[in-house]
């Protein structure tokens, strides 16, 4: 039966009234109308639904709403705005790391969690860190390029000389 749940998404507290077996992805999309996270497989194998929860990249289709209780959820909608893009978002544009764009929000969120944890991630680390995110369009080359560019940009910011 439906239950009242609180979710902390992009710094805002939302109250939803949903069945406890709903996935976080469903609730983000259907109840909160945050459709940036996409459903590509619904079984944890594509990464299109990735959001960042307490600093970790998590597949929204694998988490049930009760499991998100008390956690800070960041979705692509909370990452940057049109005027104020996150360096990853800017790098994805600049380096043509976007084609159809269906993998993009999940890819950026995974990369965000990765760079937060390993600000100096090497290409190898980026490749293994993002291997749970599938892209069928780009062959990944420009995605790696974009993540490396964002990494360098972020390093400059935190260490302005």
């Amino acid at each position, binding site marked *: 039966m439906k239950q009242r749940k609180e979710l902390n998404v992009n710094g805002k507290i939302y109250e939803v009234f949903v069945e406890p077996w709903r996935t976080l992805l469903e609730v983000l*999309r*259907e109840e909160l*109308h*945050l*459709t*940036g*996270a*996409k*459903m*590509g*497989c*619904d*079984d*944890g*194998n*594509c990464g*299109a639904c990735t959001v960042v929860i307490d600093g970790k990249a998590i597949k929204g289709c694998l988490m049930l709403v009760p499991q998100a209780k008390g956690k800070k959820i960041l*979705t*692509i*909608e909370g990452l*940057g*705005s*049109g005027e104020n*893009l996150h360096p*990853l*978002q*800017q790098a*994805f*544009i*600049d380096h*043509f790391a*976007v*084609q*159809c*764009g*269906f*993998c*993009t*929000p999940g890819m*950026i969120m995974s990369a965000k969690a990765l760079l937060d944890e390993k600000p100096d991630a090497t*290409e190898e680390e*980026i*490749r*293994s860190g*993002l*291997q*749970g*995110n*599938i*892209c*069928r*369009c*780009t*062959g*990944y*080359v*420009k*995605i*790696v*390029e974009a993540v490396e560019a964002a990494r360098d940009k972020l390093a400059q910011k935190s260490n302005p000389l």
Partner: protein
Amino acid sequence: MSSNKFPTPTSVVGKSVPRVDALDKVLGRAQFTADLQRNFPGLFHIKVLRSPHAHARIVKLDTSQAGKLPGVRAVVTGKDCPEKVSFRAPRILALEEVIWAGEGVAAVAAESPEIAQEAIELIQVEYEKLPAVFDAEEAMQPNPPAIVDRLLGQYRGSPQFTPEAPNVTGHFKLRAGDVEKGFAEADIILENRFSTSRISHSQLEPASCIVRAESDGGIITWTNGQGVYVIKGLISDLFGLAVGKVRVINPYQGGSFGSRLRHYVEPLATLLALKARGTVQFTYSRQEMYLAASTRLPVVTYIKTGAKKDGTIVAQQMKIIVDNGASYAAIQDGRMAASGAVCVYRIANFFMDSYGVNTNTPWAGAYRGLGTPQVAWAVECQMDMLAENLGMSPIELRRKNVLRRGEKNAYGEIIESIGVMDCLEKVAQEIKLEEPCVQEPGPWRKGKGVAMGGKQNTPRGHSEAEVLVHEDGTVEVLYSADEQGMGSETVMAQIAAEEFRIPMGQVRVRRGDTAITPYDTFSASSFTTYNTGNALRMACQDAMRQILQAATQKMEAPLDDLALVNGKIIVKGSPGMALADLFEPFSIFTPQGGASLKKGTPVRGRGVFAPTPAIPWDPQTGLTPKMWNWYQYNACGVELVVNIETGEIKILQGVFAADMGFPINPKMCEGQIEGGFGMAIGASIMEEYIYENGLMTNCSYGDYRIPTFREMPLRRNVKAIFSPDPLPEGPWGAKGIGEGTMIAVAPAIANAVYNAIGIRIKDLPLSAERVLRRIKEKEKNDQDFLHN
């Protein structure tokens, strides 16, 4: 085609300007079909009951329990479907027999996906299993073990249908020169058989649509299917709806690669929307994307090549068998696939038969290259084998036989634009093909290989485009081709910006709504830049002419002395005037009609482009001066390692050269190359359908593995090279690129594997399992040889 007068070097076209859709996509704001569901409270959700059997008679089908479940709005079976069938879509639901494991038997629309699923499970169905045929070579025989589609001949009215070969959907013959004589002159004859597996497009966004039944009997469809007008035509035709009451809208599409060219969700959703008299949504699960969406045509190719000692190919005979699966949709004679063998080499004596065949397997259709990569797989492995037999370098052999511009191919077409040999030379140089690989101790063996190929462009359909030029100089571009990720919106914006000499930021693209944007077919055969791009140039020039016409009076100058550049009318030898000043304000005291331009009223330019039609070929010989339109070409070189203990292959380096004509946006062309290369790695070494009694058993991303970051070489080891041979009638000389980028990869990989371990593998994929099996076989043979 003439461009803007007073030509200046291009300012936007040919430049890697950022994609116009990128900002929305990185913000998570770009709308895909399923994202729109939130706009429809009270939406019904569709689920389908699918057959577990590859071929069976439906003895009993009882949906009464499902219909009674609270929350269920409508239940349909094959009996509720329109009798009409269309080439554009597979049958909506099975009628008397199911013909592949995964075919839909019944469908439910309910208030929630869970209720719909529960209802599906309440449907009772009894099957009587029938013999099935899975192998195309078996299926094409007279008296096959099963007839896949009993109605094939009947409803297709196919002239090529014969009761003697009831699973053969078509047969194309090419008879050029005298092949007997050619083989008689040959010093060496080489015969081989090659095959490719069934693979899935696996585009990331599942097929999805929303259909709203309107109160006047019409419908509105939001869909990620390709070709809004094609869908409009299909739906109105299937359901007998007034064409003017069917509206189709196309949000962004999350990849397609040909998958969305046939429409497998819209017809069923329409059926249920009409029955439910409401709005329904139908989104395939990932499993359904494998079982009941399009797949790539598996192809078996027999090839026999005769050559002189100096490498000149004097005769070639081929038999190409294209497995359509249980397709009601893709009636084919294999002609498209077979074109891959005709467009690269000069072969005067060419005898070729291609067949389309139905089997009781998931249906197949267009897939990045429409069969040409599967046939090039055979041709390009054969070329390397021939080179080895002749003791020649693979480059030299290809150089000797490649078609050159102005020459005729085996159809009899004169080739206008062909950059294929340049592509190969560049690739071979870059990968240092002549330098042997340095082997390291351990189980990994290094090898290099190359291959090349071409893809025809089908002269299909016609494209329209419109521009609205506003008084402030901003331009709206209206068109209906697809945006499945390849960047058509950006290319169109670039073309308009170039024609009007305005910055990209002043162009807004509006796309894919049959009530707003003008006719187009769909984005296929890599023709969007060429077809729609040409139409758009005409639309820009049409608007420009109207504006300059209006300016002739104001400026008191003849039309020929005027040009529109970046919002200004320029007259030869004068300072000119602002575009805005041409638009007159009006009130009830001024003439409000008339020819002058009015404030608030954009100038509407219109362009229509249709490719020059093909010239019908002689059905007995396949000969014609024009079968296709133009060809894109490419070559690939790879360096890889093979693990002789596990059979695993790792691609270390990939170099890819493309002749796509003039690149309108070089970075996006690079993106097509890298994306095609990645996809082809999957097709070459990883992907295949695995079945049990015809039922696919690996239908998830977890089990049907597609390339991840791990399978791609390091980014500095992937290189894209442009080697364009511009096409005079393409926009600024552009051709197309999307499909060609897969063709040369698989044979380059197989040639490199041979180079590494001396084993020639003729069946795709080169999975670790298959490679290891072949290594073990070879070891055993070598030992047997030693012991004897």
